[in-house]
């Protein structure tokens, strides 16, 4: 539960940052999508049997949806699909060092 709340807080800060501050530092009009990058990284580096990555995809997608003009749920779907895809690929084909809990 604590982990869940921390994720919500982090993603909320990231989305605020992305939708206001980063606009001034766009690269030729392109603003990096911090949330999708974060979802990608969390899924890439977490242990194989944990599902924090999926939660983070849901929370991140939710915040993207809140600030998006497209229909609600699109970003949740996109980020969950990304998370599941990364998990699947890593489980089947890749071995990467993951952060182990102490």
């Amino acid at each position: 539960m604590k982990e869940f709340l921390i994720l919500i807080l982090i993603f909320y800060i990231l989305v605020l940052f992305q939708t206001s501050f980063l606009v001034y530092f766009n690269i030729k009009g392109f603003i990096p999508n911090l949330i999708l990058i974060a979802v990608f990284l969390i899924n890439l580096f977490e242990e194989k049997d944990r599902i924090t990555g999926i939660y983070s995809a849901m929370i991140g997608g939710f915040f993207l949806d809140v600030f998006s003009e497209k229909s609600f749920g699109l970003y949740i779907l996109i980020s969950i699909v990304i998370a599941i895809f990364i998990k699947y690929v890593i489980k089947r084909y890749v071995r990467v060092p993951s952060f182990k809990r102490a």
Partner: protein
Amino acid sequence: MKFSQTRNRILILLTVIIVFLFLGFFQKETKNFFYSISEPFQKTLWRTGANIYDFFSGIFQGNNLKKENEGFKLKIQELEADVASLKELKTENEFLRKSLDIGLENEFKLIFTEVVGNGTSEDILIIDKGSKDGILKDLPVITEQKILVGKILQADEHFSKVMLITNKESSFNGKIQEKEVEGVVKGSGNLRTYFDLLPKDKEIKEGDVVVTSSLDKAFPKGILVGTVKEVKKSDLEPFQQAEISPFFDIKGLKNLFVISNSQ
């Protein structure tokens, strides 16, 4: 043990999905709630971004400033000459209007708004006025200098989303000032626009000013859009195209006006 853990996880996952679906059904309320709690943070971040950007651009573009300054001085002289001749025309115009008994054109009714932030996809802005303040879908949005920014895409209760003219879905009729060349201004995403469907026989130069045309019903005529940056002519295409650099800069947008009586 392992089984119950998996079951627990699945249960948590299901509840989370249900909560999200529930929020999806009340998306207007959800969005409004989040916008109202994040408005102060976003406004602060937007302004902080502006200040930091100003500070660094001052440092890194120091060399260009001198060159730019000289260019501006020349431009000012040119414009002052124009202003002098226009003043004469204005008095003449007023005199003629009086003698012909024609009133001045109606000024726009404007609603003042502040930029809260950017949407998640580019070329969308969020502003702090909504349907309760009289904002409706498709109303034009301009800056203080009467430069076209875009139109209202969605009006929620207290907030609205503005589709910039650089958005891929934006298109309207425009024309080149002082030349009777009409075309369609389309957004190409990432803060860029282009002028399409221009007749091939008309000559267009770099630096020509593009304004909204009277053919367009969405925007009032004569509002500044941008300048022509690059003309693209190809023998294969039936029309010529031109890239436009818009007059508004997203980095300088703080206050905007919504025209409430355009139609």
